[in-house]
């Protein structure tokens, strides 16, 4: 039975990786930017499926949400701006890049032969720090999902850096494209025949459900796959869908540009603020065991929410809750900022053309 399951999993791996190769070749050969972007989305979806087979649920979730979801929308917004047709290159120009790609690819394939086997318990990644995370997490953090414990507690500083990177990306896009439309957006065209009634009704039904799902992913993150990054992107999908169906003007009226900007900054502040509170209470930066001052610590009854060895994990629970909330704020607001930037620029150009 186990043998059959192993063989089936091997066959599934081979099939998914083959699909990745085929989609990759199709992307390289495609002459249409639109087709390439849609194929990139398919590539991400297939790799997400492959990551599920590899039991990396959190990574698969991120790949599906970011790769197949939001980046496709952003890239589509980008080609709205460039409107580039296929470019003809002299074939001799492609020789140096091809040689470079072949060289790097060959080196990578050579490096693969030196990697430990998949799932090898004695491999460096599994033997040292990985094993201690698995053993210590229930005692030290008290969170069932070890990925969340590693991401937000053990490596909280690293995650703060990632959040700042996301924030910086949003600022970069906003500086180049603007935070939103600068020209006064023209009123939405009067619907002559109501073509999009099905779309509008479905979007109205879906937008609250999407937001509800985002909050489920957010607050379920320490129990199952998910967390601030995935939830932030899913939450950002709701206003983006609203803008796509009802028009950017309506969305900006509902969620103003300055609100989005403030929330993006607030997230980073919240994350870093949790770290500073820990310092003020005598701990290290982002050491959530010191999140509460000693006077509050004393009031929490021992044995509540935790094993008897360690009185409780309240500091860890609340620390992870707040920093994940910060991640949610920054990621979702940054995604909306980026979308506003691209869509607003397109609206500006439309305005200028008309």
């Amino acid at each position, binding site marked *: 039975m186990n043998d059959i399951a192993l063989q089936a999993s091997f066959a599934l791996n081979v099939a998914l990786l083959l699909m990745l190769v085929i989609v990759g070749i199709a992307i390289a050969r495609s002459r249409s930017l639109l087709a390439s972007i849609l*194929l990139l989305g398919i590539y991400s979806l297939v790799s997400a499926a492959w990551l599920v087979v590899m039991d990396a649920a959190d990574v698969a979730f991120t790949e599906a949400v970011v790769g197949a979801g939001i980046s496709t929308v952003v890239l589509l917004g980008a080609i709205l701006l460039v409107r580039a047709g296929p470019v003809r290159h002299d074939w001799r120009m492609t020789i140096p890049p091809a040689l470079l790609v072949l060289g790097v690819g060959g080196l990578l394939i050579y490096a693969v032969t030196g990697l430990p086997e998949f799932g090898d318990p004695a491999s460096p990644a599994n033997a040292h720090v990985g094993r201690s995370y698995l053993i210590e997490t229930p005692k030290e953090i008290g969170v069932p999902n070890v990925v969340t414990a590693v991401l937000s507690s053990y490596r909280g500083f690293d995650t703060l850096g990632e959040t700042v990177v996301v924030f910086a990306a949003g600022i970069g896009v906003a500086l180049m494209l603007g935070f939103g439309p600068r020209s006064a957006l023209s009123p939405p065209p009067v619907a002559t025949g109501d073509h999009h009634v*099905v779309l509008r009704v479905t979007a109205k039904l*879906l937008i609250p*459900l999407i937001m509800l799902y985002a909050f489920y992913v957010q607050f379920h993150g320490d129990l199952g796959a998910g967390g601030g990054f995935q939830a932030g992107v899913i939450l950002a999908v709701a206003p983006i869908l609203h803008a796509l169906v009802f028009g950017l003007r309506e969305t900006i009226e509902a969620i103003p540009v300055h609100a989005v900007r403030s929330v993006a900054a607030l997230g980073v502040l919240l994350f870093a603020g949790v770290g500073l509170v820990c310092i003020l209470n005598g701990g290290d930066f982002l050491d959530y065991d010191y999140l509460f001052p000693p006077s509050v610590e004393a009031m929490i009854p021992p044995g509540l929410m935790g094993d008897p060895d360690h009185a409780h994990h309240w500091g860890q629970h609340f620390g992870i809750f707040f920093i994940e909330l910060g991640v949610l704020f920054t990621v979702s607001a940054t995604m909306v900022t980026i979308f506003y930037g691209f869509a607003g620029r397109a609206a500006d150009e439309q305005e200028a053309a008309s």
Partner: protein
Amino acid sequence: MVDVLHLIGGVLVVAGTLLTLLGGVGVMRFPDVYTRIHAASLTDTGGATLVLIGLGLISGLTLETLKLGFVWVFVMLTTPAAANALANAAFSAGHTPRIGTFQITKSADASQAKPETPRTASGDGKSGAP
């Protein structure tokens, strides 16, 4: 009893995947945008329904069944709406159906039918396929 349910569930999952595969063949083989959308959306919802029912039978009456039900509701909401939006956009862009009452062709074989007036290069919906 459990084995029988597993067997029926497995058969339904395979039937659903085959139906989805058939939809893929339809998208490649059908003559115009509208029939292709038709092939993709119908088999998508039908195939997903079969797969989800099959998975529900395999999982038994657990929390997973409820989640599969949510997935089914989501698929039934989004796929037809997406097909509608796609067909709407195609119609707005001026695609005419190659079969049906919009155009009478002498050839009975629909796949041999040519459009009355060749539109732009991207007008036949085929150039979008990679």
